[in-house]
């Protein structure tokens, strides 16, 4: 993706929540870059901080959460330094977001046509006739069957997949440069998921849109993303090009995650590889590496000091937060 303009640059983003007088850290030092036409996948389990990250990028963190540090630069301009009004104006036409539960994200008392219209009114300056044309065009772009009928319907009358297409239509209505998709296919059936993923891929290709694809599903992200960021317990633990990641994971957590996928189940030992223990809760502080209690490869240093994100030269572009990344197949370094 070199040569393409950098749409979004997140630098050293940290978010805390203030609860009962105690500061609880939700995400720590998150950095990422998205260029036009590129899809960056953020992968993590629940509690890893991936949703907080996307909300922070959109400037949607509210009390009791607050940004401790970091910059979010869109086309070079730091969003976090703007007032919320300036940010809304700037973000609305440049960045869009779609969410996990499409039927719940839509207003149940308005028809689809009314809701898409709202999206236009907020950001465009088209007259009524122009808006109507554009709405139909959008329906066609998202491949909606029977667009007229759908536009007259209410969200509860449509399926989850169709509502997600409506959400996507609303999101691309103003031709955003960057689309943030937060678990867009988690709540739909696998056949619908395929349609939604295809749609997103096609939209991206046609508009050279940058995309951040947040999910817990490694298989899905492997088909969509060019680059993957693995998050664990509020931190980035590995950054890598997609193909390289699935060939060889360097962080023990990533490796363990890959092994615990059902598709990697081997009938020989008749049991799945699972990671013992559970992810530390936000705010739980550990003296050393946050994955150390569950790590199969942990050594003494790991429980004493906190590893930082390092670039691994031989596997560049690759960053790993580990004192002993799994750089050789034998598992020992």
């Amino acid at each position, binding site marked *: 993706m070199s040569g393409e303009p950098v749409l979004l640059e997140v630098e050293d983003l940290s978010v805390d929540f203030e609860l009962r007088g105690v500061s609880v850290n939700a995400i720590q030092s998150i950095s990422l870059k998205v260029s036009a036409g590129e899809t960056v996948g953020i992968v993590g389990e629940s509690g890893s901080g991936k949703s907080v990250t996307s909300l922070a990028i959109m400037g949607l963190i509210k009390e009791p959460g607050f940004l401790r540090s970091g910059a979010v630069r869109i086309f070079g301009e730091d969003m976090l330094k703007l007032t919320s009004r300036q940010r809304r104006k700037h973000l609305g036409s440049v960045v869009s977001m779609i969410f996990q539960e499409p039927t719940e994200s839509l207003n149940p008392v308005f028809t689809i046509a009314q809701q898409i219209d709202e999206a236009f009114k907020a950001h465009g300056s088209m007259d009524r006739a122009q808006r109507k044309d554009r709405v139909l065009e959008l329906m066609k772009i998202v491949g909606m069957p029977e667009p007229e009928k759908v536009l007259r319907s209410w969200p509860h009358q449509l399926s989850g997949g169709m509502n997600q297409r409506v959400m996507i239509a609303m999101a691309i209505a103003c031709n955003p440069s960057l689309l943030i998709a937060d678990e867009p296919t988690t709540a739909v059936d*696998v056949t619908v*998921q*395929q349609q939604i993923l*295809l749609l997103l891929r096609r939209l991206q290709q046609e508009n050279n849109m940058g995309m951040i694809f947040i999910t817990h599903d490694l*298989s899905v992200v*492997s*088909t969509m993303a060019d680059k993957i960021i693995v998050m664990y317990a509020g931190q980035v633990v590995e950054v890598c090009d997609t193909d390289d990641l699935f060939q060889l994971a360097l962080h023990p957590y990533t490796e363990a*995650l890959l092994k*615990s996928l059902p598709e990697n189940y081997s009938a020989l030992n008749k049991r799945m590889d699972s*990671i013992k223990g559970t992810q530390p809760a936000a705010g739980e502080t550990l003296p050393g590496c946050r994955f150390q209690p569950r790590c199969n490869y942990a050594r003494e240093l790991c429980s004493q000091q906190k590893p930082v994100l390092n670039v691994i030269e031989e596997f560049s572009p690759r960053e790993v937060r580990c004192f002993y990344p799994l750089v050789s197949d034998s598992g020992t370094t």
Partner: protein
Amino acid sequence: MPSLLSVSKVSKTYRESTGFLGTREKEVLSEVSFELESAQILAVVGESGSGKSTLARQIVMLEQPDSGEIFLHGKPLQSEATVHQYIRMIFQNTAASLNPHKRIYQQLEEPLINYAGLSRSERANRIRQSLEHVGLDAGLVSRYPHMFSGGQRQRITIARALILNPEIIVADEAVSALDVSVQAQILNLILDLKDEMGMSWLFITHDISVVNVIADRVMVLYAGKVMEIGCVKDVLENPLHPYTRKLLQCVPKMGASLNMDFNEELSSPDVVVPSTGSGCVYRNRCPLADQICGESEPPVISSASQSVACFKA
């Protein structure tokens, strides 16, 4: 010797009201038949609208089928008390299936109070054993559900299911809402329970990749009808029904990129829309469908380990 569970041509229709004084009938299950043996896991695969949850409700006697019969050890299901003890159920939403205002101890005790006829200390013992069986610390019993993680809550619901020593557990999307690493732990637990206690599971899921891990046999449902049923190995390696093939093809595989024809994909309806009239329910989405598929119900073609309902198999 009769199968542990035998479901024979079960059908169920729901009546929905369509506005003012109108009602519409929707056939949610249509002549579903299958058998489940001891220490066997049967996966029921289907998308939303396939009728899989309705099937679960018939088996645990929450509802009565409109036609067809269900047999447990060769005898028809009659007494709720028997069914509640022999066939237990766990759900997808762990937070919703545990009462937020009751401590875990009370929730585990309830089935014992109703059915087990044990003294208080005997109940305490059983509860402790059940929790240990699922790998949870028995000291956690005085807590409330929201104090546990999703994976722990699912273990608690499994403990609640186990506590009456059932023979069958119906798991309705039991791991779908769990993180991958937690999912792996729960799947291992289910396999352990099958091996150690000879427990049978009716494992309902929409995630076909999990089927390979956990199930001995798999049944594919579409619009309330059985499309294909057989040994997991056979069905996954050699799917005979076009719908099974479609499901397998839709699963994102690691490392593979999307390379489908976009327009062809988007034009097919994304919900289970059963074809009306006579003929195969799947024909309006089936790439192989032709005239014969609209004329009558497809025949069931069976081999030793696999059955499929299709004209084109």
